[in-house]
């Protein structure tokens, strides 16, 4: 089931969903992911569109027409919910480890 497979997001998926909080098309998504991650995450077009297919099937994004010639994408409400849940999960991971990491230091 597509939704179950997207309960937790991989790093590239997370950044792509972050990027799609704005309406963007293919190349813009790749550039935005690079920008948000400080150049750390580089996604190729093949990987990007494989992800977009999964997101689209799971209703996490929708297609829009930013211009007459290009198809663009933007996150849906469901996508925002999943993104927030992932953010909360990652935050929990950090919080849970904070005290222990302080001790280690």
């Amino acid at each position, binding site marked *: 089931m597509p939704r179950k497979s997207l309960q937790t997001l991989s790093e590239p998926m997370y950044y792509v969903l972050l990027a799609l909080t704005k309406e963007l*098309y*293919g190349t813009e998504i790749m550039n935005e992911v690079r920008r948000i991650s400080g150049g750390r995450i580089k996604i190729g077009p093949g990987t990007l*569109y494989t992800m977009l297919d999964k997101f689209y099937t799971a209703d996490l994004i929708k297609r829009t027409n930013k211009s007459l010639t290009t198809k663009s994408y933007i996150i849906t409400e469901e996508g925002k919910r999943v993104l927030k849940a992932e953010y909360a999960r990652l935050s929990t991971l950090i919080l849970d480890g904070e005290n222990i990491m302080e001790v280690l230091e």
Partner: protein
Amino acid sequence: MKLFNKEKNTITAPFTFNYTELTAIEEYLTEQEQRGLRLKEIDGKSFVFEKAEPRTVRYCAEIYTGSFSVDFKATCENESWECVGVYNKELFVFRTENEDAVDIMTDDKEKMKIVGKRALLKPGNLFWFYYPIMQIVRFLMDFDGTNYVFIEINQSNPYYYLTISFLILILSFPLFILVDYFVWLCKAKTATKKGERIPFHNLKQANKKRKIRYVLLLILIAVIVRFNSFVDGGFAVNQVKLSRNIQFSGVIYWLFFVIAVSCVFLGSDSVVPEKIWQNKKKTVQCIVLSLCFLVLTVSVIDDNERKAEIINYNGAPITFKDFGYSGMLQDDRTTIKATRFAQQKRCNINLRKELPDESTDSVLMYEVFVSDFSDLREKYIEKVFEEHDIIKEEAEVIIGSETKWDVQYKVKTVDNAHIGMAVKDNTIVCTVMPFHADGYDFFEVAYEKLFPENE
């Protein structure tokens, strides 16, 4: 193999790669580029090259099966990857002169999943599994030797020992594809776990595997043509000589039937070139045509009046003419059945002209059944008695020394028909005669014909 088109100044080469050979595809195209052949397009199942000045380019072959192929191509082009061609709507071939162009697929784990899923379903692969699976099913069904096409199962006949070899041969080609696939899949999973690049086969490996596939494919075709029985479509080594038309139509029958099954289960572009089967209407036409061919071929090969010569283990044919019946039809009305476990020849003769009295029941039948398997012979005997509503224990039984046969069964039925059965080693002769004359001499003559060296 390349075909040169003089008019268009292009060269066509078949696409013979598997999806586990993406690296090999890239190396192959790069090699052609260096030889002055640039990939112009992918036309159906072929590469089309045009002559051009060699350039330093990078090729990239990727599989994309999603719904956004147009956007995908456009984005690739923005990243300086020119889409040169698409194979089977899912394998995209790109080219770039930019050495720093970003890789198209950067997630190896995802790439492995996609390739792993599509590699086995590549057009034509499952085609080669259909025939062996079907033959194995028939092999198992053939064990009931009385209902299927028979073969000569003389133990001195080398074909007897080829049964297992035959199975191994027809399975070797699809097994090679499967083993090759799963070995690659294991290596790919291990590599992605370690964070290494997926080990797609390179050009050298791909060429080697292609040669092995061709050899196994030739063996498979040779075995199919030589050994397959098209009589009743059974899986048997066919010792019965049939007309070439029947064998040829059998080949056509299988070809079209398999195409139909592939179209039904895999879609219209699974077996034939894309250009031919572009819509469902044509797929339906293909299936209907295949079914018509199936019916036509089955009706042809089910012709009981065909001439056939069956060679029994003593090499002597046996017909009613051998028993001195005059005035009968030139052609025996025979039914021949064979599997690898038994063979059977039945003659039904209408002797209305020859009757000494005015009996209306004029069908004279005799049957020869040969099997090395005692349980099949027992089953046959039971079946004959059951067919004629006879209780075996009520039959007159004559054993061994009183007759040249090991045992003889004789039954006189209510309507005065005589049923006789004689057994010797692995041979059973059975007769059903509507009149008394020659009812018992038959077996003496039959014995002389079947076992001449024992006289």
